């Protein structure tokens, strides 16, 4: 009950942040060069028709009225307007694109965690040893490599040369139809439907983009794991546990790692949030039909409703990640009151 009240209070606090981002998105799109109507309509449409389109898109109204009406539609009907380019409701577009990005980011981040945390723990346990130095080098190289270039190099090696990976043309080969929609995450849906071939195809399409994301996300995670572990291992309670002769595995996991988890989670939330935006670079290379590519195309074609919707969605997810983080921290740390 207390947790629920806390969540509600936090959600209430999020409203102004989301309103603020939406306002900025609105403002940015309105100063974008290029009249979207001209672009959509093309040169052969009459002036009256243009005016009608403009009215329908509410672009004839003053800025604040556009904002107000947009909000009203969003809150009452969940309507974010219609995309100029896809001619579909933006809400529907987003629901189609978002799972693609989510699946990619989840795999990428999952991989990063699986690689980075053992690396960080190992480095901390063998501080200043060759393992530690190697881990540091791996981490700092990983964060220095441009993700879009890494994707290309991986593609060159594993697709063009070795032909292990599928071509960079989206989530599934064109000959294959997606699994029945449940979550929108193809690997999960394929498993639920028992379609092994689809699962394997979706997984191999995910491999290279997920690895690209993971390599760049690994570095901050590994570094934070290392420093948080080092700090915990040098703490008074670890020294006390040693003095009591508690076994090494208890000291490492129940004492050091448990205390290191909170800073690691905090960094993880940041990395995850950054990946939600940065994923556009990966989607661009792998023609991944996700939110990033959608946003990029929307920006390039002055598609106001699409830009606003995409930004609103990404920021919402972003702030939710932080809400989840705070809940997780409260669950782990008894000193944090919810």
């Amino acid at each position, binding site marked *: 009950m207390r947790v629920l009240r806390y969540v509600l209070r936090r959600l209430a606090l999020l409203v102004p942040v989301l309103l603020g981002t939406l306002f900025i998105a609105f403002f940015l799109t309105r100063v974008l060069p290029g009249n979207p109507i001209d672009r959509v309509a093309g040169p052969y449409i009459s002036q009256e028709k243009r005016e009608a389109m403009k009215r329908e898109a509410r672009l004839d109204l003053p800025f604040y009225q556009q904002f107000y009406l947009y909000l009203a539609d969003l809150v009452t009907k969940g309507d974010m307007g219609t995309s100029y380019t896809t001619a579909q409701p933006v809400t529907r577009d987003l629901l189609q694109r978002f799972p693609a990005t989510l699946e990619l980011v989840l795999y990428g981040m999952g991989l990063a965690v699986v690689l980075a945390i053992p690396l960080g723990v190992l480095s901390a346990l063998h501080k200043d040893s060759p393992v530690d130095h190697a881990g540091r080098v791996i981490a700092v190289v990983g964060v220095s490599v441009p993700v879009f270039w890494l994707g290309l190099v991986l593609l060159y090696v594993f697709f063009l040369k070795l032909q292990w990976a599928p071509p960079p043309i989206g989530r599934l080969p064109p000959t294959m139809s997606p699994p029945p929609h449940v979550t929108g995450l193809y690997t999960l849906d394929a498993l639920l439907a028992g379609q092994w071939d689809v699962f394997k195809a979706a997984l191999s399409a995910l491999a290279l983009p997920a690895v690209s994301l993971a390599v760049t996300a690994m570095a901050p995670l590994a570094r934070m794991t290392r420093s948080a572990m080092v700090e915990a291992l040098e703490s008074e309670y670890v020294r006390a546990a040693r003095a009591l002769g508690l076994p090494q595995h208890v000291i490492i996991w129940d004492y050091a790692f448990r205390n290191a988890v909170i800073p690691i989670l905090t960094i993880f939330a940041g990395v995850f949030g950054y990946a939600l935006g940065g994923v556009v670079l990966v989607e661009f290379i792998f023609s991944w039909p996700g939110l990033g590519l959608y946003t990029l195309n929307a920006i390039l074609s002055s598609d106001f409703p699409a830009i606003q919707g995409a930004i609103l969605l990404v920021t919402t997810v972003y702030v939710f990640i932080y809400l989840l983080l705070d809940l997780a921290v409260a669950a782990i740390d008894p*000193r944090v009151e919810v």
Partner: protein
Amino acid sequence: MSLLEVRGLKTYFYTRRGVVKVLDGLNFALEPGQIVGLVGETGSGKSVTGFSILRLVRRPGRIVGGEVVFEGRDLLKLPEPQMAALRGRDIAMIFQNPRTALNPLITVGRFLEQVLHFRAGLPRNRTRDEAVRLLSAVHIPDPERRLSSYPHQLSGGMAQRVMIAAAVAARPKLLIADEPTTGLDVTVQAQIMRLLRELRDQTGTAQILITHDLGLASEVCDAIAVMYAGEIVEFAPTRTLFATPKHPYTRGLLASRPKLGQTGEIPGIRGAVPDLMNPPRGCRFHPRCPHAFTRCRVERPRPVYVSPDHYATCFLLEEEGHA
């Protein structure tokens, strides 16, 4: 045979600015069931002595020489796994700030049960009852309920009781208590000291009490080692030490204690603790010693026994004809 005998223990800290000789040839012994106080100012090397015995000195510190003989075995020569097996089971330690010495993320119950399972070798199904028994043994009210408390929910005194409970869980033969009552209320201090004493009386656990408070040490210790700048300058049974202190430093310490009904200025020891990176030549106390003479400035004094259980490292005693 002594339970513990420390001989020529040297622990140096290798900092970037140079080598700090925190302990430079420390000697003392402890009999089974005895409580010995290690008394000295901050920076005299008391805590490092405790950590050196358990081989838990942190980098950049390192034990570079000497012997720590516990029940006939030199701990400094034991392989680490055997040393780890000994910690908590034969020798345990409690710390200065009990609240930072407890893992903030696990409950008292989980902590004690871990210690009981891994150190006292109790099967998992018996640890809970034993944890309750331990908590009531250290006089924690409502022990059942306390099992689910987290360290931040405990008072300092309560946290120290929990630490003590954990430390004695495996019935060690030696307990090292590093400033166990610093930062606690005076009444709580007294309770903790009483508890430690009671522990010795009931289970015969020998103890090393590390403290800067001579008065506190005098209340519970059978013998006291006075430390100055990494050396024991005087060692004697408590009563003897108070009655006939031999080292000028000990005398200074005793004189600087306020007495009831005393008026006027309290005499202190002039000067400050020396820099251990460049300790004074000869006797480390000579710059502050009112009786220092030429020999003190060049030669290092060795322990002089005034009786079989009382020694001090001071040339004055040799002059008096004790050597």
